[in-house]
């Protein structure tokens, strides 16, 4: 029997993608596309600019310059490859074992090699597209600074492609083995914890090592030591090192085919080994992946604790909140992200503590106030990102259950109310913790403490409302994975709206805070007069509007949902 081509096996995927594009276009999606392209280009330009400045500086340094540029590229590619292994392990689990088209593919007379190659391609595409896009401005900067010429672009593609294949094969193989050991659902749970633990550990390690100290010349006894360290390959057996070597050799105008040869032969050999492993283990793993779901749970505990705490609420609101809390804490892919959040808070506070601010009394006061004020923006951004992950998907995740909610006498504003407070309360605790502890560490004066605490409260209410409102405005009912929902177009618009709000509120408050700083600096008494209060009032109105308006728009949008 003639086997279908790989293109045919992929057909449902690319046809679905094409259809989505057509639907977007028919809905007048060209504005969306323009915005996405605009934001993407801006991001690319920013990355290019940063790399360009660094590399131009390196180029001006005799001897050390090219070594530093190579080291930097090596580090970038090494971090890419580490991210890719993790993301491939997680993506391979979905594409090889949990995807909806697997039943059809496995039951059809398609041979194992085609299934393997098609699924490997799918895994590679899903896990690597972001890294590949990120590499474009970075490599362009290298090409421009070191005059790579027109052939540099195809050479870079030729180098990067096998470097992306290697982690895809490795990740898929790890998943294959893990699924054979655990049932798939457990594996996914385990992986999210492993991935987050690894990410958290890495961040903590970076903070403990303090790389900024290594960059200072006092860290090395002499220049020769420093050069010796730079010349030593960081990881000689990793494809990232070969890719770095290939690219830097090309940019120097020398000819050394060995690194490229190593990359391609390793990728080919790994694909072969991966295929053999797939042939031996896939059938048993796929069978195991069909099994296993968590069964008995302790539901009464939640009823006694959260249920009792919320006893003052009407029954529909209470049960709705209780339901959302249970769903969150029973889904490992959701709650395990709290680990990352905890690491983030520790790193955040650690960074604030590391700031050398308290050296001179007057200058110290100015910088302390400035940092405390700017910290509002940074904390607001962190809160926005957290809200994007946890609050933005809230309405989308109800999509498949809307038959129940809409056919019951539950009022939509009750639903929205519950979603809002389930998201806002933990966000507010985090916001107060971040701002309060930062201010304590900075030893700010009471005026700034009060201003920043009130501001962060207002911002948190607004950020949560924006996340929920935009989540309702741009729902993703067909996506089951909550982590994917914020990466949609709606998520981007939400982040842009939130950043605009942060800018507007901080700009408004700055006038009042500046008056305070000037008064203290000049040794005059701080007078909270009508003028200052009016600025605070404008900021409060901005926050209140950014809270009420998105909720109102979200509610109107939800009333028009059709299922």
């Amino acid at each position, binding site marked *: 029997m003639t086997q279908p081509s790989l293109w045919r096996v992929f057909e449902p995927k690319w046809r679905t993608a094409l259809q989505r594009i057509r639907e977007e276009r028919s809905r007048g999606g060209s504005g969306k596309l323009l915005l996405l392209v605009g934001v993407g280009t801006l991001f690319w330009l920013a990355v290019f600019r940063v790399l360009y400045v660094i590399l131009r500086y390196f180029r001006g340094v005799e001897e050390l310059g090219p070594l530093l540029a190579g080291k930097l590229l090596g580090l970038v590619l090494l971090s890419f490859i580490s991210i890719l292994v993790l993301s491939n392990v997680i993506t391979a689990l979905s594409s090889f074992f949990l995807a909806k088209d697997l039943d059809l593919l496995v039951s059809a007379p398609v041979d194992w090699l085609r299934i393997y190659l098609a699924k490997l391609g799918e895994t590679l595409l899903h896990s690597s597209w972001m890294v590949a896009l990120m590499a474009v401005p970075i490599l362009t900067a290298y090409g421009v600074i070191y005059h790579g010429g027109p052939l540099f672009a195809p050479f870079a593609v030729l180098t990067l492609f096998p470097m992306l294949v290697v982690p895809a094969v490795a990740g898929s193989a790890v998943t294959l083995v893990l699924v054979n050991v655990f049932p798939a659902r457990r594996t996914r749970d385990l992986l999210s914890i492993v991935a987050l633990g690894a990410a958290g550990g890495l961040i903590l390690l970076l903070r403990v090592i303090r790389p900024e100290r290594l960059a200072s010349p006092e860290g090395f006894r002499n220049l020769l030591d420093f050069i010796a360290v730079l010349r030593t390959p960081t990881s000689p057996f990793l494809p990232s090192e070969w890719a770095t070597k290939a690219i830097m050799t090309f940019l120097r105008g020398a000819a050394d085919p060995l690194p490229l040869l190593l990359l391609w032969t390793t990728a080919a050999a790994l694909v072969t080994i991966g295929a053999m492993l797939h042939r031996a283990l896939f059938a048993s793993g796929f069978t195991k992946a069909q099994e296993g779901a968590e069964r008995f749970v302790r*539901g009464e505990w939640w009823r006694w604790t959260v249920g009792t705490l919320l006893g003052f609420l009407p029954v529909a609101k209470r049960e709705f909140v209780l339901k959302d809390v249970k*769903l969150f804490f029973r889904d490992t892919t959701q709650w395990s992200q709290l680990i990352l959040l905890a690491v983030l808070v520790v790193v955040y506070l650690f960074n604030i503590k590391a700031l050398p601010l308290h050296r001179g009394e007057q200058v110290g006061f100015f910088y302390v106030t400035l940092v405390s004020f700017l910290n509002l923006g940074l904390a607001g951004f962190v809160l926005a990102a957290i809200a994007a992950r946890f609050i933005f998907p809230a309405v989308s995740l109800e999509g498949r259950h809307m038959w129940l909610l809409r056919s019951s*006498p539950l009022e939509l504003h009750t639903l929205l109310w519950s979603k809002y407070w389930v998201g806002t309360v933990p966000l507010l605790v985090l916001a107060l913790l971040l701002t309060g502890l930062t201010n304590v560490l900075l030893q700010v004066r009471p005026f700034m403490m009060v201003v920043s605490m009130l501001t962060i409260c207002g911002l948190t209410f607004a950020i949560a409302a924006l996340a929920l409102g935009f989540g309702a405005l741009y729902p993703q009912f067909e996506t089951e994975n909550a982590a994917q929902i914020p990466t949609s177009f709606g998520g981007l618009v939400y982040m842009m709206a939130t950043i605009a709000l942060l800018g507007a509120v901080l700009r408004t408050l700055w006038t009042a805070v500046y008056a305070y700083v000037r008064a203290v600096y000049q040794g005059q008494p701080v007078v909270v007069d009508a003028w200052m209060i009016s600025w605070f009032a404008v900021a409060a109105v901005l926050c209140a509007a950014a809270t009420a308006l998105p909720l109102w728009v979200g509610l109107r949008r939800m009333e028009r949902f059709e299922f």
Partner: protein
Amino acid sequence: MIRLENLTKHYGSFVAVDDVSLEVSRGVLYGFLGPNGAGKTTTLRMIAGILRPTDGRVSLGGDDVHANPIAAKQRLGFIPDRPFVYDKLTGAEFLRFVAALYGQEGDAVGRRIAELLEVFELASWKDELVEAYSHGMRQKLIISSALIHRPEYIVVDEPMVGLDPKAARLLKDIFRQFVSRGGTVLMSTHTLEVAEAMCDRVAIIQHGKIVAEGTVDDLRRQHRAGDASLEELFLRLTGGAQVRELAEVLGHGGGDGAP
């Protein structure tokens, strides 16, 4: 009474439901029949208040579902064709949650949950997460959830799909008892034997329009069908009798004896 007045639903230029008017009286089990894509599910979802009609109105016991939704939905139990339930809740938790949506709580709800789970043979599964349930068990759970608040009207889309014969029989008995006590059931189904045996009246919908309505005997009389079965009537009314040659459809690979 469930009353549909000139109910219409457009999806862009496609007319899914076209000016449908219908009355289902108290104490009646009403069958809503039609081929795939005829507009049955769209009609039922508009009755349940999940979809908004393009035109026309739906009322349940005199309350307009879209103008006065809370009062109308309080009386309704809706059973969809696809059993999407929160996977990370247990069966008992799901039922308690649904009861809360109808404003019910307390010991009475606990007793009602135990009673329904017992009837549908889910009692031993009550503390297990729904993600471990089979399709049929989820369907039974959804049926239980539609009954938890003792509705006056039940609107049900393909109730027999996924149920084992015992549960299907149980459901038929429940529906019959429900209407004998004054409740109203509007049920869409493809199982014409079930519709013929159970329904007091039926409507057949095709291309979004009602093409026949009445008791099965009414339909036979109206279409001079003698003692034809509901299946024969249905095929005649919906043009399904023009079936292609089976041999042509099945091809020549049917077995050793195939020519």
